[in-house]
């Protein structure tokens, strides 16, 4: 009887030790969300989309950029075929990152894509954030993968990557100004005639 009680207590201690408390976020902000999505055909028969990011990203970004740290936003798009049973599923899942940095010496902001694209410099944070909120010509799937007689859905999500402390201290140390903001998936039907439009 005593052994069982001791085992339970040790188990409880183990569970408590490995429990990771949730992150803290202070202040009431408008949750970010994906908006203003438009579909278009791109050269080379690709399905391109434009969309924007609405809502507050985070006020701590200013402090982070002033500290010389970068802010990374990941844009993710999935195309899912709507069909029953095994015929359905994800036919495309793509994402790219956009990195926002501040040069404190020149007091300018730089936005760069992870695909090695050009680096754009801005004089103000607002200009840089405007670019961060706007995505154009995101190639989500080849149009050849879109069959005219099938239904497809586009799922979009934007994730403002979590700011990390060394040694994962942000996991269990409170009051360290964290964020881990991820928009809910925005699900839209892919226009059926998109593959036939020229």
């Amino acid at each position, binding site marked *: 009887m005593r052994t069982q009680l001791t085992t339970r207590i*040790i188990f409880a201690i183990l569970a408590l030790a490995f429990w990771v408390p949730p992150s803290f976020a202070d202040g009431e902000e408008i949750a970010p969300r994906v908006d203003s999505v438009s579909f278009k055909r791109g050269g080379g028969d690709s399905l391109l989309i434009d969309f924007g990011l609405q809502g507050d990203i985070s006020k701590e970004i200013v402090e982070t950029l002033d*500290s010389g*740290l970068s802010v990374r936003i990941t844009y993710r798009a999935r195309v899912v075929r709507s069909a029953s049973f095994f015929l359905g599923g994800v036919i495309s899942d793509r994402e790219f990152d956009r990195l926002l940095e501040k040069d404190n*010496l020149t007091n300018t902001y730089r936005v760069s894509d992870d695909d090695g694209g050009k680096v754009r410099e801005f004089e103000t944070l607002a200009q840089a954030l405007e670019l961060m909120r706007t995505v154009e010509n995101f190639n989500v799937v080849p149009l050849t993968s879109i069959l005219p007689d099938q239904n497809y859905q586009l799922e979009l999500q934007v994730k403002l990557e979590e700011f990390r402390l060394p040694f*994962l201290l942000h996991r269990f*140390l409170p009051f360290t100004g964290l964020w881990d903001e991820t928009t809910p998936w925005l699900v839209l039907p892919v226009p059926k005639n998109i593959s036939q439009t020229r």
Partner: protein
Amino acid sequence: MASPAGTQKHIPDPLRPVSFRGAEPGKPVAKWVIGVLFLLWAGLTAMQWQLFRVGGAESVTETFGAFALINVNILLLLLLVFLTMRNLAKLVLERRKGILGSKLKTRLVLTFLAVTVIPTFTLFLISAGFLASSIDGWFSVRVDQALENSLNIARAYYSAEEASTTASAKLVAGQLAALEGSHENNLEAGLEELLELYRLDAISIFYPDGSTVETLRPSAAPLFVDPNAEAIKSGFNGEDSAMHISQPDTDILRSIVAVNSPDGGSVTAVVVADRAISISSFRKMQEITKGYEEYRQTEHLRVAIKASYIFPLLIVALLIIFAGTWFGFHLSRTLTEPIGALADATQRIASGDMDFQLDLETPDELGTLVKSFNMMTRDLRQSREKVEAARQTLTEANTELESWRIYMETVMDKVTAGVVGTDINGDITTINPAAMEMLGADEDVRGKPYTEVLPPEALGVFESLADEKRKKRSDFIRRQIHLTAGGISRTVMVHLTTLRDADGRASGTVTVLNDLTDLVKAERAQAWREVARRVAHEIKNPLTPIQLSAQRVRRRYSDLLEESEGDALDEATRTIIAQVEGLKQLVNEFSRFAKMPESKPVPVDLNKIVEEVVSLYRPAHSDITFQLRVDETIPTVEMDPEQIKRTVVNLLDNAVSALEGEEHGFIEVDTQHEPHRQMVRMVISDNGPGLTPKARESLFEPYFSTKKGGTGLGLSIVKSIVADHRGYIRAVDNKPRGTRFILEFPLPGA
């Protein structure tokens, strides 16, 4: 060699050692587990401290390692907390149960807790506050402002350099048309002049047709980098730009400006002006920027940094507290366990278990105490063994005495002689059943004065004996007396002996009473038999001649004498003959008495004999009620049937004679079996007039008879027959009336 506490030596009984912790299996294991946990925790804490102190990059391995390290540390800390709390809970329980040593243990643990907790937490709080204030001091307004100003200065310097470069580039662009006119064939020479004029290190002119003109200082040649095509393209689009090019040995500020046509409608060329910045200046600007950024990062992580310093400090504080608590437990255990073992050993000794010894050899006072205790136990055990041996001897002696006493009591109970012991005060201390019967005592008279117990008629005799003994100054006197008690007269030989102790002082008197009644009666009977034998011998011989002579006289002279004389003669001779016949019968009775035939016992059924005899009397004496009650359990008895019949006949004759003239005559014959006494009994009772005490006294003597015409030999013969069968006959009063004859015969083997 000292053996550690917790081990148990097995040495043969009776010296069975008891170690302090032998009775608690598993406890040493728990102790080792806790020790290992403690060391592990301390080691991991040190590693963690080192990691926090060093900081470092955020690699996956380090992150995971730190995460695991912290969690394992927390786990170990919680385990230690749990085990310590468990020990504390056990201590509370022990204290509630009142276990010996728990109070001392509590006091020690609390003392160590107080000694460790108060200074440690005080130190922790002061250190944590100092750390917090020190870290906060890093982020003071002055530092913040200074860094901000430094950054602003750096920015201003950089901006100024950039603006100057841009301005120089624009000036070059503005003078380009004039320069092309004046140095038509040697534009580079003109640019060199401008290079010197505007402190530039390189000037490049790009024309829409793709041609370029470059001028640069010889020292800047290795640093020169071709302009970015994209930037040149932007310049042709009318977009001016500035950029910073970082080189290993220097840094270059580059401005790109467009040269518009005089009408301002198109871009005729793009001017790229480079100015090298002093490496030291730019590095300092970068360091200022980096310092500012690190300061901001650190400020952002202020709480984390505080925690990273305070957390190990807290762990160290807890380490000290747990170490102190644990040491308190350990110290209290080292003190209380021997004390508890001693107490337990004391209780076991008190309960009688002395066959063990405590197993502890330490050089301190506890070791001395344990040695003394073991010595005391050994002494006690040896003493106990001696006492046990003495007790055993006493028990055996007592058993022997008890056996002897039981034997003596049995002897006293069975002996026919009466024994009465009195103390110096005359109180009876011992009396056996025979003496009680002789003295007519119905109850246990032990403790009573003999004067109350003796019958009044015997009291005088005994006191006269005592007086005589005193007068003779003798310790012993013997006298045959006639003692009547309970209605029975006895001839008793009294032996009066004074008892003396080892010092010769009188301690009491023992009186032995030998009932000589039967002996006297037997002697008397024997005398009578002798008399009878002689009388029969002397009388029987002349009787026949007398009878024959009388018959002859009657025959010869009866006819010779006249009728009257003849009648007289006839009557006389007849009388002589009749009396002689009577004398013959008397002589024959004497002869039978004197010469009782030897009994020939055979197995017989006593009940059958009795039934046969009683059946003969019933029809002959219809006025008397005969009641026969036989015990069917009577076994076969070794008896002479003829003599037993004669005995029953004699007794029934006496009973019938006693009932002559009595109305409602009643004779009862009982047979009884008493297995525990191994005897059979026959009782013949009547409701006649009974016997007087004198008659009862001489009842079985020859020639004593209460019957008219009785010879007085019947009961003598009965007694003789009974005696021949090793039996006993006595006559008692029948209640409410009459006489009761009781005959008792032993069974074979009795």
